[in-house]
């Protein structure tokens, strides 16, 4: 039986070989003629992964080839982001990038800069919110900031690693309000989930993360979302005030999720994916999926997306240098 199986697999191998030769003949055919890999720099099951998988399955439907999502995690997203930038620029490796891609270079981490990508389109952007414990002595953002100002060291904040976007959003706000960023202790965590656990257990006072990620503990009556660190209100959380309204500042670090590829992929690929992505973001099914997870849909085309990335890269770099984080 074993021999039979071997024989059969040899036959299959031959067939595969023939098939390979056959496809190689049509190398000039239209993209995509084989499966496309979509690299996600964050772990399976997280927000970026969920949205990337939804986008990939829609792309698959529209372009007629499998779009396989591959998670390449580690190093605060650095491993996956550099894998996207360093992939062969043949159009068969795309990636979903997040705002962290703009911050590595300023942090002095090697591997990837915003110039290393071909930008294709943004599909999501959600502001970061300020979340406090439900049983805190203050009940709004103003009260919190007053405490930070009056009593440096009394408030401990968390939400991500040091130098992560949560951290930058928070210290950037303090900086704009002329408060020393060191006035609130930053507790470095692995992400928003452990930070929310710390908040619920009463060990810390503030978590800066997206309102969606705080939602279940807000429902549980353990936490309270008080403001968005943004200049625009969110359509998903229309009642949340923004820090721009509250403090008359101009600080709007907007985390995004978008499709990008290595520098120099064929223009045909960019045009096709860009068009498909626009269709996807207009699809009611996709919109209701995003809303169900608390993500907003915010499409930008390739040129606009690139401009947004570059300007946020500059803004974050200056926030990092004022916080003494850049190298």
């Amino acid at each position: 039986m074993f021999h039979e199986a071997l024989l059969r697999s040899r036959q299959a191998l031959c067939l595969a070989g023939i098939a390979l030769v056959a496809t190689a003949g049509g190398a000039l055919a239209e993209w995509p003629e084989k499966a496309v890999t979509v690299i996600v720099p964050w772990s399976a099951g997280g927000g970026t992964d969920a949205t990337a998988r939804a986008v990939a399955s829609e792309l698959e439907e529209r372009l007629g080839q499998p779009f396989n999502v591959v998670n390449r995690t580690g190093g605060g997203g650095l491993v996956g982001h550099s894998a996207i930038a360093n992939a062969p620029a043949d159009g068969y490796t795309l990636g979903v990038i997040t705002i962290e891609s703009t911050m590595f270079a300023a942090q002095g981490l090697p591997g990837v800069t915003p110039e290393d990508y071909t930008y294709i389109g943004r599909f999501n952007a959600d502001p970061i919110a300020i979340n406090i414990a439900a049983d805190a002595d203050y009940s709004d953002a103003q009260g919190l900031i007053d405490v930070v100002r009056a009593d440096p060291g009394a408030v401990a904040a968390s939400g991500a690693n040091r130098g992560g976007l949560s951290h930058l959003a928070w210290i950037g706000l303090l900086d704009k309000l002329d408060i020393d960023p060191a006035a609130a202790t930053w507790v470095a965590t692995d992400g928003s989930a452990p930070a929310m656990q710390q908040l619920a257990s009463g060990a810390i006072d503030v978590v800066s993360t997206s309102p969606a990620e705080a939602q279940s503990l807000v429902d549980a009556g353990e936490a309270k979302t008080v403001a968005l660190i943004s200049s625009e209100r969110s359509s998903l959380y229309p009642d949340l005030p923004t820090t721009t309204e509250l403090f008359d500042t101009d600080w709007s670090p907007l985390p995004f999720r978008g499709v990008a590829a290595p520098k120099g992929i064929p223009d045909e690929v960019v045009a096709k994916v860009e068009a498909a992505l626009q269709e996807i973001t207009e699809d009611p099914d996709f919109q209701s999926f995003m809303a169900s997870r608390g993500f907003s849909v915010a499409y930008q085309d390739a040129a606009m997306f690139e401009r947004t990335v570059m300007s946020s890269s500059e803004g974050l770099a200056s926030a990092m240098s004022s916080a003494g984080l850049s190298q």
Partner: protein
Amino acid sequence: MSIATLAESFGMVFQAQVLIAILGGAVYGLFIGALPGLTATMATALLVPLTFYMAPLPAIALIVSSTAMAITAGDIPGALLRIPGTPASAAYTEESYAMTRRGDAGRALSIGFFFSALGGLIGAAVLLITGPLLARVSLNFSSFEFFWLAVLGLLTCALVSGSNPVKGCVSLVLGILISTVGLDITTGQPRFAFGSVELLGGVSFIPVMIGMFAFSEILRGLSANGDKDRSEMEPSIDSRQLKPFQGVWGLFRRYPLSVLRGTSLGASLGALPGVGGDLAAWIAYGISARFSKTPEKFGKGHEEGLIEATSANNSGLSSAWIPALVFGIPGDAVTAIAVGVLYMKGVSPGPRLFAENPTMPTAIILCFFVANLLLFPLGYFAIKGARAVLAVPRNVIVPMILVCCFLGAYAINNTLFGVGIMLVAGLTGYIMERNDFPIAPVILGLVLGPVLERNFIMSMQIARGDLMGFFHRPVSAVLGVFVIAVIAVTIVSQVRKVLRRSRADTSETSLTQ
């Protein structure tokens, strides 16, 4: 929860679609788990695209049953080939492999399946009765408490390292050191990365585990070729011993306390997000060795520790869903994926889920019961099938294990880097074992190292460097005093032993004078 809710949930679970999902997930989980090097996390991640096309409950049922089965089936390559399926099962892999080498493979597997299922069933019952309450308790755990739990976990090292605790501690420290590689989240600085982007991501424990256990075993087999101890290396099969579930009831009656301790430990530790599941099996094994009447038998194929650790493993698996369902805080990679799927299906985990739609969480918990019950029949076939694995000649099975080693190491992050880590770890493991350094503590250190470090630093940042901060919170203070007491008792008893011996020596010499 009311009887009506329970009845309604039963109605939801006992539908063809859900039951087929559970059965399909279980069979799939059995295959993935039984393949050396492929893990429960991977099994779950691969299912995600499939769940897009399913109704919410069948989708979750699929994930629940495939992980319960994959975690248990991960003990099969552990017992037969010495390749642990999860970091938790690394705690008792040596023990079950020792049984296989003695010709008791059937017994090792029967214990694995039977007590896993038992632990899983009890864990699910705990989840059903105390779920929201336990979640409320687990929410009070902060970095201060997690730090003490991590210390407690590290203390079990002395108990899992066999005859030479000093060498065990050396292995443990090696594991902790490896865990420091990568981007430090506190300072944002790379550590020991040597400019490599891949190393910035840290060293994942799965390739290390595969390398240290499985690849080093292959190297050992190669170098032992032609040696006189070769026959000792090869697991002997005695087909009489492969009768599934024979004698497990007797074991249950002999060690009821182990089952009870294991499951309650697993259920309570499992509910703590982030550390629970992995820690439970290690601490359970350690406690079992500490309180056993025959601690000298541990590590040589003794049932007691195996029973306690394997039941802790599965009950921890169930209760890891408590924080995930009640507060949307995933406890491990598997529940993180499951939470994602729940959201995608429009079922947002959180207290509102229990208040507004209690049948859904209850139905999910019922899926645990069904999945764990399935462990009995599927385990029966798996144990029967194990005979075939053991009967394969070594020159055929070794290349197959090698392929699985490469595959598993590659699959963790889809890079050859993982394969490199696996090879280096294998070589290191081989050299360590040649010199009698146990390898299980390396895995313990690698898993607990980041937990220990992060929670220590977080606590210190919160307490502004005041070490007394570890005693300011009530639960933390109790845990801290307990851990310090354990260390103190160990030191005192060692000192007394030494003193007694020296006194006996002096009295002996004075007698002879």
